[in-house]
């Protein structure tokens, strides 16, 4: 039910693939030419930016032609044994059964540095004598490492498909999923993807799954994925989100850590929840998020972090039932964080005094700094004589004394 749509709606046939008509035609003709005997170039090198359909093209074509597809990716090229195994496969083609097989070496960019130099050479050697089509895929075919390899391949470039074509693909998915989608919502997602069909489908799923209808309004916040837009939009996204899923998603997009994000939400959410019920609900959600943070501390079981996230994002977003829009209310930097950083030195000082108290008073340093310090301050301000005595008794240094007097 929750399969990734990029897999679930992967084109079953080359006819369904978005864009790159020329490239697909060239590739398909080359594959088909194998039925008339081994062609001049025994390998095809498909290259182009991520998510434009290189791998999908190979997979769909194999399916269309009823050929067996043997896939390998970067990690498989490293060991000699693995390379030899696929060398074996490559040499068998047609020799006995006239079997129809394509060998696909994906993610060639993954071969790195000198360590894999041998890998590229081994691949080149295999191509020279291959008895079946070998397909190489990489983002950049013009990497110097591939100089020699390139001359044994036909090079086929895959380009970013136009936004309108991406939108068409999304439309097809929406029909299969039974979701009604506004035309301009699709266009928006497609445009944002900049030709990366995979990310467009992922975005679309995140936004539309479980919905009957997707409007432009629902998707417009996607724009905030751009990192420099940062925390403000993230907050807007969380506080004004209509679904739990989209509110929770904000966390994945956030570049800040969870505790920091919590502070931002805690600081800013109240002003955007004008209705008292909504406010109480949201603050309760934050309170629960905080309770789970405490449980993480005591159990050291970080898997509880998911409930922290649930409460602080979806919990807050779903509290917003009756509130009117707060109008243009600027988000503020969490004042607690301001205070914290200001008082970092102070905390260190408190703790060192706490340690002194601990030595005398059978109490933990942290507790001492809470339970004794406020009183010591009063004493040090009001009664020099008593202060001197206590300073000696606790063995406080001048800095500590100055702090308590300050």
């Amino acid at each position, binding site marked *: 039910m929750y399969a990734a749509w990029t897999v679930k709606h992967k084109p079953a046939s080359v006819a369904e693939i978005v864009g790159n008509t020329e490239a697909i035609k060239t590739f398909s003709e080359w594959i088909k030419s194998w039925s008339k005997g081994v062609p001049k170039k025994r390998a095809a090198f498909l290259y182009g930016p991520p998510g434009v359909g290189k791998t999908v093209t190979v997979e769909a074509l194999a399916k269309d032609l009823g050929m067996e597809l043997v896939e390998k990716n970067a990690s498989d090229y490293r060991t000699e044994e693995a390379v030899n195994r696929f060398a074996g496969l490559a040499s068998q083609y047609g020799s006995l059964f006239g079997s129809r097989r394509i060998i696909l070496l994906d993610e060639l960019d993954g071969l790195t540095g000198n360590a894999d130099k041998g890998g590229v050479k081994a691949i080149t050697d295999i191509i020279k004598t291959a008895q079946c089509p070998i397909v190489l895929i990489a983002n950049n075919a013009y990497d110097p490492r591939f100089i020699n390899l390139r001359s044994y391949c036909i090079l086929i470039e895959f380009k970013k498909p136009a936004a309108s074509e991406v939108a068409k693909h999304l439309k097809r998915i929406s029909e299969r999923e039974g979701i009604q989608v506004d035309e301009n919502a699709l266009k928006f997602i497609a445009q944002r993807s900049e030709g990366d069909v995979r990310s467009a489908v992922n975005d679309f799923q995140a936004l539309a799954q479980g919905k009957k209808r997707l409007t432009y309004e629902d998707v417009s916040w996607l724009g905030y994925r751009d990192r420099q837009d940062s925390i403000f939009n993230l907050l807007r996204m969380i506080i004004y989100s209509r679904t739990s899923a989209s509110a929770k998603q904000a966390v994945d997009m956030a570049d800040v850590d969870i505790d920091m994000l919590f502070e931002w939400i805690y600081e800013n959410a109240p002003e955007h929840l004008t209705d008292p019920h909504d406010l109480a609900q949201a603050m309760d959600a934050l309170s629960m998020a905080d309770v789970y943070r405490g449980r993480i501390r*005591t*159990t050291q079981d970080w898997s509880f972090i998911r409930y922290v996230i649930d409460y602080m994002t979806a919990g807050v977003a779903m509290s917003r039932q009756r509130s009117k829009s707060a109008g243009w209310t600027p988000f503020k930097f969490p004042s607690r964080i301001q205070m914290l950083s200001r008082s970092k030195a102070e905390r260190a000082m408190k703790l060192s005094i706490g340690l002194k108290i601990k030595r005398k008073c059978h109490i933990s340093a942290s507790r001492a700094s809470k339970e004794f310090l406020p009183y010591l301050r009063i004493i040090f301000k009001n009664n020099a004589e008593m202060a001197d005595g206590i300073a000696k008794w606790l063995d406080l240094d001048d800095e500590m004394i100055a702090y308590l007097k300050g």
Partner: protein
Amino acid sequence: MSFEMWAEKYRPKRLDEMVDQKEIVERLKSFVKARNVPHCIFAGPPGTGKTTAALCLARDFYGEGYREHLMELNASDERGIDVVRETVKTFARSRSIGEIPFKILILDEADNMTSDAQQALRRTMERYTETCRFILCANYSGKIIEPIQSRCAPFRFTFLPREEHDKYIKQIAERENVQLLPDGVDAIFEVCGGDLRRAINTLQAAASVNKPVDAKLVYSITGRASPADVQKMLTTAIKGDFLGARKQLRDMIQKYGVAGSDIIRQIHTEIFKATEIPEPWKIKLAGIVGEIDYRLVEGSDEEVQLSALLARLVEAGYEMKK
């Protein structure tokens, strides 16, 4: 006036000197008589004598050289599993020299230990029972894992009753030549609620001002968590100004260092006093206060929890107006 912390100076040295927790003291004395003690949990609110009782017990067992047979660890400072593995084990397994065949390890604020550390502790307690007895002090025994609880004799410490509290405070005032007025005593009790350590600290701080100690002085020095401030914050919230109320809360916690537990206790008191809250609402609000209090106890962020409470008060205020 003497120049050390009075809370320490007036800490009882022997079980006989302890002012309250009579039943507990009796049982502890019987352990001393029998020259044997089981593992114990001393549970109860702060300032009720848990650590004191443990120290007194040790002194009664071993005499003035008790320090050689005793180790005090504080779980708030050393709460990790490593401490249990290293420090505790090393101490626990070496045999005690002397008449009493075991040593005593006081583990203070044990409820702050991680559960992993507690699990490790449980095994250590079992293995070295012969050579070491553990006294775990905790505010809430519920935060100690079951297997440890079942291996310990439980002792429940409670706040000092009002008379005992007053008697003790007045006695210290007298010995230190402090002029303590009756409403000063009331104020100390109101602010500290039976926590004797805080009460003594409050008295000493008030005394340092060199004026007769009255209610006004007590409130002025106790971090301004005067009932008036809490009341003001409550009113602000009930009127619907959440941000204003949160600001006041922040000041109390951050600027004046008032403890969250104090504020919540006072809110609880104020709710039942406040005339602007309709009667049927009071118990409802008390329930909400209780829930937040519990979350605080679980070790959550004071400001976050209390502002959740303030938001509930804003909501209640809004409903009342209808």
